[in-house]
C-alpha cells in the first residue's frame, strides 16, 4: 500500500491530490511504525507528517498554481540514481538482523542500561520520555532551539515578504490617487 501511494504521488498531476496522497503516505508509515512497536515515533509521524505538513502544503498551494508543470528533462538519469540508491539500500538490509531478534545491536548496546536504570533513577514508565527529556536533555534542548530557529526563519522569510508587498500596493495606491 505504501508503494501504491508513493506511485500515485508521482503519477497524479493535480497538486491538491498529491498533497492528500502524501498525507495518506504519512499515515500508512505511522501504521508501519506501530507495527515496529515504535509508538512515540508513530504518534509524531501521524501528527506532524499527516496533519501539519498536509495543511502547510495546502497553504503553499493556495499561493501557487494547482497543477504540476509538465517536466521538460529526460527521466532516465533520475531513474538511474533512484534505482542505484534503492539497490544499495536493499543490499544494506541484507546485513541487518531480523525484526525482534534479541542479539540485534539495538537491543544489546545501550538500551538494556537505560531499561534497567529508568525505573529507579527516573521512576516513570515511558522510557522514551525518560531518555528524551532527562538522559538526553541537552539534545532535546538543542532540538527545541532548532524548532525555534526554523520558526523564526520562516517568519522572517514569509511575513517580511508579505509586508513588503502590502507596502508596495499602498505606494501604488497613493501614487495613483496623486
Amino acid at each position, binding site marked *: 500500500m505504501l508503494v501504491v501511494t508513493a506511485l500515485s504521488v508521482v503519477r497524479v498531476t493535480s497538486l491538491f491530490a498529491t498533497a492528500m496522497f502524501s498525507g495518506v503516505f504519512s499515515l500508512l508509515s505511522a501504521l508501519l511504525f506501530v507495527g515496529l512497536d515504535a509508538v512515540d515515533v508513530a504518534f509524531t509521524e501521524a501528527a506532524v507528517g499527516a496533519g501539519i505538513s498536509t495543511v502547510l502544503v495546502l497553504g503553499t498551494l493556495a499561493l501557487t498554481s494547482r497543477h504540476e508543470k509538465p517536466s521538460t528533462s529526460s527521466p532516465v538519469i533520475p531513474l538511474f540514481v533512484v534505482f542505484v540508491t534503492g539497490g544499495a539500500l536493499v543490499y544494506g538490509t541484507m546485513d541487518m538482523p531480523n525484526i525482534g531478534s534479541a542479539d540485534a545491536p539495538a537491543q544489546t548496546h545501550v538500551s538494556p542500561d537505560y531499561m534497567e536504570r529508568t525505573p529507579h533513577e*527516573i521512576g516513570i514508565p515511558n522510557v522514551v520520555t525518560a531518555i528524551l527529556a532527562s538522559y538526553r536533555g541537552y539534545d532535546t534542548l538543542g532540538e*527545541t532551539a532548532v*524548532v525555534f530557529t526554523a520558526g523564526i526563519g520562516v517568519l522572517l522569510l514569509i511575513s517580511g515578504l508579505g509586508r513588503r508587498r502590502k507596502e508596495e500596493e499602498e505606494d501604488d495606491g497613493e501614487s495613483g490617487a496623486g
Partner: protein
Amino acid sequence: MRHHLILRVITKLLVGTIILFAFYVQFHGDYSPGGGFQAGVIMAVAFILYGIVFGLEKVQQVFPPWVVHKMLALGVLIYAATGIYSLFIGYGYLDYSALSPEHPEHGQHWGILAVEFGVGVTVTGVMIAIYYAFANRPPRISDEEW
C-alpha cells in the same frame, strides 16, 4: 465561509476536544506515548482548524500574532531556565534531581514535566506562527478553482 454550516458546528465541537487531548498528551507523556513535540503539534492543529473554518481574523482574535511570537522564545526559555535553576541549586545543568533534592525521583518528574512544557510551548508557537505566515499572504487562486 458563512455557508459551511456542518463544518462550523463540527469544528466547534472538535476544537475543545483536540485541545483537551493535547493537554493529555503533554502532561501524560511520562506514562504513555507522547510528549511536548506531539502535544505542541496537536495544540496547534486545534487553532489551525479553527482558522481554516472561521477565517484568519477570527483565530487571530483568540490568539493574537504577538502572543504567538512571544511563545516561540518563551518555550526555549522555560527549558533553559530549568537547567539554569538546577545550576544555581548546585547540581549539573539540566540535572532535574535539583528540583527536589531529598527525593531525586520526584525531581526528575518535575524536571521532565517542565522541559516538556517548554518544548510544547515552542512547538505550538512555531506551528501557529508558520500557519499565520502562510495564511496572511494574499492567495493567488480564488475559492472557485478548488
